């Protein structure tokens, strides 16, 4: 321990302590509501407003049973609907984006620039202008209040196409496409057997983006659906909370429902972390 080393090392240590403290404070702020819902869903209706907020209780399974009993398991139907909307919607959207992105990155054809610019403008279109006319147009086709009303609009993702174009340009060498053509593979076969596997990493990101966007969406299903058997979890919980305003006994079900609803996405995040290294400006993904 020499005195010489202190002036140079001390600021470094302080800074690191400050940085660590700030990061942990940020983490605490972000975890607080999640911790709260975990504890609150273990409380009975009586305990919710009477015992100390962060004191856990033992009624989690009673609450889950009560929630499951609500109108013959309607809650689980909402969860299944959400999985359907997000899973099918994101899968279809990813395939459509991959095809469009591949065409825009690897082919030359008249109108290419215009088409790409229109799709880019679509990224910045605010959903507000789409919601009501989408509803009215689907109503004319008699498709509102069906699964299709939520699924079809989620199939198109301008941002997904933009990302897919970048991935196709970066990950698919033109020589390999030529080679595949010389081998006599058709365009669709080349796409399915050569292009899609090469774009895989990027397409997982496109899928996740769209999956989360659909899973979290509220306004579109809220407008499109009237039958609560078709609701996704967001619209269902919103309705349940509205009921709770008049019968506070519902609150434990709302809170338990909120907890269960975030478990699948959190699990998805933790397992697929590396796909979330997204460079928004460049559109690149660093895995």
């Amino acid at each position, binding site marked *: 321990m020499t005195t010489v080393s202190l002036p140079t090392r001390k600021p470094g240590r302080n800074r690191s302590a400050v*940085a660590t403290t*700030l*990061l942990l404070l*940020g*983490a605490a702020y972000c*975890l607080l*509501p*999640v911790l709260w819902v975990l504890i*609150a869903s273990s409380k009975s209706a009586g305990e919710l*407003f009477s015992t100390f*907020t962060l004191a856990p209780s033992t009624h989690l399974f009673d609450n889950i049973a009560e929630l499951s009993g609500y109108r013959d398991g309607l809650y689980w139907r909402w969860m299944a609907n959400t999985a359907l909307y997000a899973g099918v919607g994101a899968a279809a959207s990813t395939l*459509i984006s991959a*095809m*469009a992105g591949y*065409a*825009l990155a*690897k*082919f030359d*054809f008249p109108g290419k620039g215009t*088409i790409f610019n229109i*799709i*880019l403008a679509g990224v*910045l*279109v*605010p959903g*507000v202008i*789409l919601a*009501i*006319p*989408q509803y*009215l*147009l689907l109503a004319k086709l008699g498709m509102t209040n069906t699964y299709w009303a939520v699924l079809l609009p989620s*199939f*198109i993702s301008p941002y997904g196409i933009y990302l897919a174009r*970048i991935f196709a340009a*970066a990950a698919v060498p033109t020589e390999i496409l030529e080679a595949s053509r010389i081998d006599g593979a058709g365009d669709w076969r080349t796409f399915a057997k050569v292009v899609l596997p090469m774009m895989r990493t990027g397409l997982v990101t496109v899928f996740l983006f769209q999956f*989360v966007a659909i899973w*979290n*969406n*509220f306004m579109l299903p809220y407008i499109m659906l009237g039958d609560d058997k078709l609701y996704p*979890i*967001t*619209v269902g919980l919103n309705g349940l*909370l*509205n009921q*709770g305003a008049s019968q506070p006994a519902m609150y434990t079900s709302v*809170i338990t429902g*909120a907890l269960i*609803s*975030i478990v699948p*996405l959190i699990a998805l*995040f933790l397992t697929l*972390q590396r796909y*979330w*290294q*997204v*460079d928004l*400006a*460049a*559109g690149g993904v660093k895995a």
Partner: protein
Amino acid sequence: MSLTTPAPTTTAAAPAKPAPAPRARSANKRSGVPYAFLAPALVLFAAFLAAPIVYAGWLSLRKVKVSGLGLGAKSRTEIWAGLDNYTRSLTDPEFLPSVTRVGAYGLIVVPTMLGLALLMALLLDADRTRESIGKFARISIFLPYAVPAVVASLLWGFLYLPRVSPITDLFEAVGLTAPNMLSSSGTMWAVANIAIWGGTGFNMIVIYTALRSVPTSLYESARIDGASEMMIAWKIKIPIVMPSLVMTFVFSLIATLQVFAEPMTLRPLANTISTTWTPLMKVYRDAFTRNDIYSAAATSVIIALATFILSFGFLKVVGRRAFNQED
């Protein structure tokens, strides 16, 4: 960092020369291929983006004329309205307050959220050695992105209730009165906090990813030149992440002006939130509670135009194009 398209022409043209005839035929045959690959995207784009925009514009210029007593199917006819719906929208006594409310809300949310996201990203990046704490903080701060706005509002809504909130306990422990987040002056902060909580982590990851693409050797040479960590952050790191900051700003702005799910979910818990608390809530009420789709269409055109002007105006001011077009 930007991924650029490798120039395909040089490699493709060379082997094609010796056999011009079959190649011309195959190129001809393939000329429809890119359109076939694009077809599903273009059809869906036309049906669910282009057509609704045109239809909203059309509806905003129409109105219903009621003749006679308004009874029977023939008595209600749709007629040309000119700009009537727009003047009605703009002069509606509830429109201006909702616009100023969202403006103030945006002024709170966007700078706070992006400031926190930048700060956390810089802290994570400065502390690359302390992996375990950094990893824990990164995952924790990103976690709210997995929570839908409805659920986030629900959780925070309960935490705002004085009887539940641990924050109230904390204030009382030190002998202070906690602010009531669900009072009329508190709701703005209550909604803003939910948006900041939900959005900081995603933006942090975007900025952090941009920072990670910089080789550490760049910082080491700056350190050897005697630059402090603050100076490195300010002079090197922030300029490097500027394109990411610009894009997160534009996306945050668009999302902020359309705030809907958070106030809609808080409403049952806070009677201070009116049905026209934000412009989008007013659009919803006009269209579905009052069945006045025409003025709802006019209001949504106004919001969309304002969003476009603000986001493109911003991009113009900072002198950037929205996306790398790489052509």
